[in-house]
């Protein structure tokens, strides 16, 4: 799966810094992600990987540095930022499906309200997406009636309904019961195969090995390693990464 990137990169971070009060959560992070690339971000908790992911669609504003998406610097608040976000799908750890809307309404809300798509059209596409993630028969239920794995698959369909240029996954399987992790990773793997640009913050090392083009290792807000998965898992260069891998891979 190498050599998938062509042309200019889709997402570029340049010397990004972020402080939460005195806490320096992102430390001079520079990173470039090509079109169609699948980048998995791993690292110990508190290493800033979720913040990095959330900074890309400005859910977390950064303190200094620049982030460019598809050639444009991230806009500040307002219509331009909303437009950018509509082009970047996001999947959250806690699903965040709209609790007062049905499953199908969750998926069609963005296309109808943001893109002005005709409801009948959005419905048809929404059902096709739900079918793709295996939830079409639950379309009229409410989120609270679905299992965690089902909710997360709906959340992926909701993001895909906007036909995004890239997808951000912020620990998408961390809140799931173990037997539901697989069904979500399957959907993500098939997305990766189809050439979707993905940034995935996860602890699923299997997914990183099989689906990623690159693995980014973060520690203490710094980008410590950036390597192909086979190389990273076989020969981590930094002590931090060796230490991290020895802790998670021995079990």
């Amino acid at each position, binding site marked *: 799966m190498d050599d998938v990137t062509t042309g200019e990169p889709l997402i570029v971070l340049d010397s990004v810094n972020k402080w939460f009060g005195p806490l320096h959560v992102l430390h001079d992070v520079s990173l470039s992600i090509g079109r169609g690339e699948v980048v998995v971000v791993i690292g110990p908790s508190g290493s800033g990987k979720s913040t990095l992911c959330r900074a890309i*669609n400005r*859910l977390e504003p950064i303190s200094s540095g620049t982030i460019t998406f598809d050639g444009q610097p991230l806009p500040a*608040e*307002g*219509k331009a930022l*909303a*437009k*950018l*976000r*509509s*082009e*970047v*799908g*996001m999947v*959250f750890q*806690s*699903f*965040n*499906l*709209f*609790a*007062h809307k049905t499953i199908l309404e969750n998926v069609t*809300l*963005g296309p109808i*309200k*943001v893109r002005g798509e005709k409801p009948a059209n959005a419905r048809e596409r929404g059902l096709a997406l739900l079918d793709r993630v295996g939830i079409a028969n639950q379309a009229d239920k*409410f989120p*609270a009636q679905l299992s965690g794995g089902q909710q997360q698959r709906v*959340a992926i369909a*909701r*993001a895909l309904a*906007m036909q995004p240029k890239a997808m951000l996954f912020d620990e998408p399987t961390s809140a799931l019961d173990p037997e539901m992790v697989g069904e979500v990773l399957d959907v993500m793997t098939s997305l990766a195969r189809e050439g979707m640009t993905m940034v995935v913050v996860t602890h699923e090392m299997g997914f990183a090995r099989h689906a990623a083009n690159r693995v980014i290792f973060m520690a203490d807000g710094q980008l410590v390693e950036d390597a192909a998965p086979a190389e990273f898992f076989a020969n981590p260069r930094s002590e931090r990464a060796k230490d991290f891998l020895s802790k998670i891979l021995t079990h």
Partner: protein
Amino acid sequence: MHVFADQANLDAYLSSFLWILKLTGASAFLALVLGVLLAAFRVSPVPVLRGVGATWVSLFRNTPLTLIVFFCYFGLFSTLGLSLADDLDLNNYWLGVVGLSVYTAAFVCEAVRSGINTVPAGQAEAARAIGLTFFQTLRIVVLPQAGRAVVAPLGSVLIALCKNATIVGTIGLMESSNVMKDLINSNGDAVIPIFLVFAGTFAAFLIPTGYLFGWLANRLAVKR
């Protein structure tokens, strides 16, 4: 009840509560619109708007309503010449509505804001992440869920507003407390019955209102 057997007294009693109803209705509507807008200001990403919302709430929530209504009459009308109607009663009525609305809006704002805080932050984040603007996020995702959490506290604000409407009597409108005072002044032998009739009328309106809001709050609760 010889007092209310007198047609003139009965008319005064009825029209006094009609004023209360009108004051409550108009002020409730204006305070709701204004309060929701202020709550939107208070949670907005724009610092200036947040400042306006916070200042409004501090100013009007911490000023006695009597003072606000006095200011509407002596300040806005007598001094600044703001006349809201040619008819004297109607002018007092609208000045009262202004005072009640700006005051109650502060409480509506705080009730709505606390309702907004019951909606998990992830709901607004997910809405922003699919490209909804700030106001779309509020209108389509946050407020419908907050609204359900806010029904019961808003019921309390409405009940308080209805009772507060009697303060407009201080600027001359012949609403219930003013009429009650007149009736007591001219019927010294029936003070307690007069008082009970007026208090009872409020209770007859407000107790069912409270139950109605409690019932609505239960019906509309969001499943999580």
